[in-house]
Each structure stands twice: as C-alpha cells, then as structure tokens.
C-alpha cells in the first residue's frame, strides 16, 4: 500500500495513526504452508551449534585482541584490527539478534549471556532493543510502527554510505545510552517499551556507562590507547560488515505490506560472511518463521524456496539490483523493487497490496 502523503517515520506521528487505522499495525502476515511435524523438527533447539560457534567466536576475538596488543605500533597490527573490528563491531549484531530471539541456544541463560555481551559491543541498550526488535517483527517495514527501518524514503544515500564507517551509528548510540542512563526515554522508545520494563532500560544503560567510564579511566591512568581500541572504538572501525549485510535485509523493497516476500530479501553469501552473520542472509525465511534457529535456516530455505522470490546470488548482485531503485526513489519515493515470484509460489495477496503497489513497483 503506498502512501499518498509523505512518510512520517516517527513512531507516534501521522503514519502511526494511519497504520493503526488501516489495520497495517499488528496485522496477520502471509506464511508459506509448512506441515506442523516438519516445522517442529526445524524449530528444535540445541546448544551444540551455538556453543561451537561461540567458542570459535570468542577464541578469534581473544586471538585478534592479543595480536593487536602484541603488534601495536607496527603495520602488522592492521590485519588484527581488521579481524577484531569485524568480530566486535559486526558479528556481535547477529549474536545479539539470534540470542535476543532466544533461538541460538536451547539453554536460556546461555542466550542471555551472549545477548548482553553482544548488546554491549554494539552500544545497544539490551532492554530497549529487545522491544524494538519485537516491534520490527510485528510490523516489519510498516512506516510509523517499525523502529528498525534502516533506510527511510526518500533514501539519504550519503547517510547510508557513512553507515559503513560506523560514525553515524556511534554518534547516535553513545548519546542515546547517556540519555537513557540519566533516566530519559524518548517518546518513540516509550511507544514500544512497556512501562513496567522502562526502568530496566535505564539500569542497563547505566551499566554500559560504568564499563565505558572504567575503560576510559584505565586508558588515562595507564596512558595507553589499547583499552579504547579494544572496547568501544571497534564500533567505528568494525561495523562495515554488519552494514554491508544488514542493509540488504529490506532496502529498496516494499513498505506497508504484510507479506515478507515483498519487503524482505534473501541473499546467498560466502561462508565467512554467513558465519559472521549467522545465516541471517536467509532473511525472508527468518521473518516468516522466527522460531527457526539460525543453523536450521538453510534447511528451511530449501523447503520453502518454491514459494519465495529467487534469492540474489550474491551481495554484489543485490546491491547492483537495488542501486537504480534507490536513485529513482530520490525523485519518487513510492517507487520500490517488486521481486518476481516463481510459478510454483502462491501469488502476492492482491486484496491487501495489489491496488496500491502496482503503480509504484519495479519488476
């Protein structure tokens, strides 16, 4: 459904009111049919894959941190900074995400521990972001409702490019934590964090601030930059992979629809990116069935791909496909990329989308 008026991305504004009035908020979404017995198998939790991956993850973080300390002051430090930065500033996003859903591990406390560590690495308030992500799943790319729309329309391409450096996110995340630590939540935050949970968000922000203050104090006391290079700053120099993969989740696709095949993208990726991203490249599948753990998403993909648009074969392909769409959205913000369904798929639900989207869609 396209918007006659300009989009208002505030979560308490005109688009919010319209989304609620038109039934787009908290709507029923399309799901591909999967037999209950099959889905039960796919949903099964186990600790094994996530423990294995987490051991590798922590070992790689500690190993690259040791390399940074050892080679500091020489050019040999660069590859270690590269690896550490991506592990800290990018792979933490997928750990935050999967553990926030509670699907990575079978044992809940393991998910919670990794969730809090990853949230800290990302400078994300663990309470606020748990709720914002719940909203993102309820109202995926519904303008005025979804708190996690990465690229709004018309797209700000400079902002999107700067996101790869982490500067804008850093500039947003740190002051947000400081504000929350002083007990101030924004109206948008209050719109999706229930009142009984809001004090927890304040306490979480204060804990993050304590760790950052301690890190700065140690760096000053020792007159040594390394603590800051290892804690906090990787959010700047290691974010690029998170942005590279994460932007593709929804960019250039439809908004204000209730079918994840229209607003979400699956992209085939190389094994290293899939490890960093914990298989979130199967993003349509994840949104349709958030109960399925990351390690079962390739199987889910095989099972339902007959009903989904063909995945982009690579990140490069996906960016090449979406670039002209973004350029056109600069002039005509209702324009978007409508991905073709295979003949084996159930058609998009015309009763919800057809009238408004056909005029704006690029096939």
């Amino acid at each position, binding site marked *: 459904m396209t918007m006659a008026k300009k989009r208002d991305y505030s979560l308490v504004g005109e688009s919010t009111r319209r989304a609620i009035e038109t039934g787009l908020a908290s709507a029923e979404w399309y799901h591909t049919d999967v037999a209950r017995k099959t889905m*039960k198998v796919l949903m099964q939790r186990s600790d094994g894959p996530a423990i294995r991956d987490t051991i590798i993850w922590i070992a790689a973080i500690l190993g690259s941190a040791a390399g940074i300390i050892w080679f500091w002051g020489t050019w040999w430090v660069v590859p270690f900074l590269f690896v550490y930065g991506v592990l800290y500033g990018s792979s933490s996003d997928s750990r935050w995400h999967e553990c926030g859903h*509670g699907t990575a591990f079978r044992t809940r406390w393991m998910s919670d521990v990794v969730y809090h560590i990853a949230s800290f690495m990302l400078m994300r308030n663990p309470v606020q972001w748990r709720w914002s992500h719940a909203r993102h799943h309820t109202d995926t790319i519904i303008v005025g409702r979804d708190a996690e729309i990465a690229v709004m329309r018309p797209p700000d391409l400079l902002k999107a490019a700067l996101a790869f450096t982490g500067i804008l996110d850093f500039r947003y995340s740190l002051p947000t934590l400081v504000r929350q630590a002083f007990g101030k939540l924004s109206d948008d935050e209050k719109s999706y964090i229930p009142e009984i949970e809001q004090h927890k968000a304040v306490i979480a922000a204060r804990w993050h601030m304590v760790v950052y203050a301690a890190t700065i104090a140690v760096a000053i006391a020792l007159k040594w930059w390394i603590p800051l290079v290892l804690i906090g700053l990787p959010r700047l120099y290691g974010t690029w992979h998170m942005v590279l993969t994460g932007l593709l989740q929804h960019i250039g696709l439809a908004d204000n629809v209730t079918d994840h095949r229209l607003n979400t993208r699956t992209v085939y990726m190389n094994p290293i990116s899939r490890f960093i991203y914990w298989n979130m490249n199967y993003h349509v599948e994840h949104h349709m069935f958030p109960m399925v753990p990351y390690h079962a998403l390739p199987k889910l993909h095989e099972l339902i791909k007959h009903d989904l648009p063909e995945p982009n074969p690579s990140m490069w392909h996906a960016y090449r496909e979406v670039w002209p769409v973004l350029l056109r959205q600069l002039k005509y913000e209702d324009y978007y990329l409508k991905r073709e369904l295979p003949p084996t798929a159930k058609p998009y639900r015309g009763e919800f989308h057809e009238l408004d989207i056909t005029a704006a869609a690029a096939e």
Partner: protein
Amino acid sequence: MAEWVEACAVDDVDEEDVIRFDHGGRSFAIYRSPDDEFYATDGFCTHEKAHLADGLVMDDIIECPKHNGRFNYKTGEAKGAPVCVNLKTYPVKVEAGKVMVEIG
C-alpha cells in the same frame, strides 16, 4: 459456571507438543508434556495475538511463534520479555482416552 468439555483425544497430541482447541468463541492450547501429562491454557499469547499452538514446546515451556516469548504452560508464568503477563491455565483430566478441560 465451570464446565468440563472434551477437547481432543489423547492421541491427537504428540508428546512434548501442543494443539489448538476452540470452544464457545474462545481458543485454547492443549499441551502434552514429555512426562505424558496434559495441560491447557488460553490459546493466544498475552503479548500479541499469536496462537501458541503454532509455537514450540520444550520441557514445561511453550514458546510463542511470533516473538519467542516464553511461558510455563503448567503454571502460566510469563518467563520474561517480551511477555510480561501470565497466561491463564485451566484444569485438565483424562477420561476414557479423551482430554477434558474445565472451562470457567
């Protein structure tokens, strides 16, 4: 007035699983635990309108299919964000191979 109603046959629910049962304009979830006991709760998650019968049963936990909110289906206790409100539970008995639920 409370009444006992037949929800399903014992064999309709797999071990460590859940099914949906609708009655009188209301919806319920009927659980069979790993130790072969039966339980019943309201059908919809207290967070948002998602039916728990599409969720995952693990030991004594039911996980909502929409946002992964978790409840203890034996007690109805909400186990943390994003579910904050407990789930209503109902007495259950098994008679002649049928699962009976007392609906108030």
